[in-house]
């Protein structure tokens, strides 16, 4: 297979993105309503979080501000999966209807081409909200702002994003084999809600599950330990960037393997 440069792909992505935004803005009412809807979803999420944790000073040895930090951290790290990989949600129906075949005829990477088609702008509201929460918690916790701490935060945010994207890719790709893959994808997506809590508050069984089976603990918990509790960072936290990359790569291979196996419905 012929490999094209990263620059080539970035340029194409930029083009598609710009066009997509332009066409979305042309539906002004739709754009405004979905932005407002997005805002309310986040506010509602935050309020329920606030009511829950506002009533307890700490949970399982975690302070309210620390949990808030985790919450913000998970919101930010979930942005890429929401913005850039949202087309995974349509994969099942396009495979089922046979439309998926149209992606197979372009001389560019199939995975890239498929995912590039949709950019979900609603994720940006979540990003802003997440960054706000993160900064607030950061200030309240009095963590020093150094180059190192900021750099660590960025690296571990990327790690968390990669893991979430990997989980979703793998879940979506199951549709190449099974009919009702919606439940798999939905299941995985629901689990990410647990990602915003420190795993230590769960029972050992779930702690094990969330670390090794469905690695959502890597979405916020293990990475943010590096910033929150630099004195007691487990090895798993330091390894998580590596895990993120490996998971992402594996999920990409799995997705592509399914796509290559795909032969389309008759026409």
């Amino acid at each position, binding site marked *: *297979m*012929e490999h094209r440069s990263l620059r080539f792909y970035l*340029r*194409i992505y930029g*083009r*598609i993105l710009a*066009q*997509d935004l332009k*066409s*979305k803005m042309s539906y002004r009412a739709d754009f405004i309503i979905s932005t407002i809807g997005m805002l309310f979803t986040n506010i509602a999420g935050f309020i329920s979080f606030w009511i829950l944790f506002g009533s307890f000073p700490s949970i399982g040895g975690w302070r309210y501000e620390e949990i808030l930090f985790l919450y913000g951290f998970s919101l930010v790290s979930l942005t890429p999966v929401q913005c850039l990989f949202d087309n995974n949600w349509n994969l099942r129906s396009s495979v089922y209807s*046979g*439309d998926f*075949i*149209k992606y*197979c*005829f*372009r*001389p*560019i990477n199939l995975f890239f081409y498929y995912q590039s*088609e949709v950019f979900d702008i609603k994720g940006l509201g979540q990003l802003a909200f997440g960054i706000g929460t993160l900064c607030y918690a950061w200030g309240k916790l009095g963590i020093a702002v150094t180059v190192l701490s900021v750099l660590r935060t960025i690296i571990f945010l990327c790690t968390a994003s990669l893991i979430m994207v990997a989980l979703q890719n793998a879940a979506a790709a199951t549709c190449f084999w099974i009919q009702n893959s919606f439940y798999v994808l939905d299941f995985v997506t629901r689990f990410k809600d647990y990602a915003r809590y420190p795993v230590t508050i769960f029972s050992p069984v779930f702690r094990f599950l969330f670390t090794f089976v469905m690695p959502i603990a890597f979405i916020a918990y293990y990475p943010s330990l590096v910033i929150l509790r630099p004195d007691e960072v487990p090895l798993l936290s330091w390894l998580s960037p590596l895990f993120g990359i490996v998971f992402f790569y594996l999920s990409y291979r799995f997705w592509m393997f399914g796509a290559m196996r795909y*032969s*389309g419905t*008759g*026409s």
Partner: protein
Amino acid sequence: MTPIIEIKHITKEFRVLNRREGLRGSLQDLFSRNYKIVRAVDDISMEIGQGEIVGYLGPNGAGKSTTIKMMTGVLEPTSGEILVAGSVPYRSRTKNAGQIGVVFGQRSQLWWALPLIESFRLLKDIYCIPDAAYQEMLDFYRSLMDIEPLLHKPVRQMSLGQRTLSDILAAFLHDPKIVFLDEPTIGLDVAMKARIRTLIHALNREKHTTVILTTHDMGDVDALCRRIVIIDKGRMLYDNDITHLRGFFGAYRTLKVRMDGDLAAQAAVIRKELPDCSVTADEEWISVLVNEEQARVLDVLALLQKTHDIRDMQLQEISTEEVIKKIYEEGVQ
């Protein structure tokens, strides 16, 4: 001239699960997997030259799509060899994709929300089309038809006909060596069908693009294809000139006559008079199928006129459609 597509004895088999009936059967299927092998394409060979328009025909489920998918590199043949522009499509899928264009009549490959011109610009980047070639192609399109109304309209808002036109233009944009058209005129009105045929014809003539056309519309075949390939149940039935195909059955013409009285009874009389022809009667007409190698139609008519009072007559050429139908039903002997 070396062929652009070379296919040697390709076969494609699929493993299909033998499904059992009922809930019990479904549960059994979960545990014991009972597969059978279905041969969708069975030992097909052909060579297609640069610049040809080939009509690829066959009834539904004949294996047409499977063959096309193998030529485009989406499927790997179970056995046999395919070379498209000198390379194996399945192994160099990306390279192959750069040299071909594909249009599905019912599935647009364009970006749904974007105006056509933006889709073109994206395709220009994706296929790395040089500026000059891109401009030249657009100018060429402008010389063929009025594309301005299409260019600035989002694909989503287009009529089916406009969308098909756009898809065809997009498929030819990177000046591919081969374009696969899968039922390009399905669901379109007569005027739009004619426009699309003219467009395909012009693109083929000017750019010397090889076109593989699958269709069920014999109008497309008559207007565009000189060569046709017919397959059924995965096997090749026919691969030759369309004129040659007519020659198979074309010696036959149908003479229809109308007369007073009981047509069925008169048909029986005519049957005796013309033992070489097949005679049928419906409510209005008596049809006499004449083999022109044995008797001239005019002689038959003269003969009939002597003994019968003919009110009206019609002469029917056998159409490509009927020929194809005959081949689907009986095969080529």
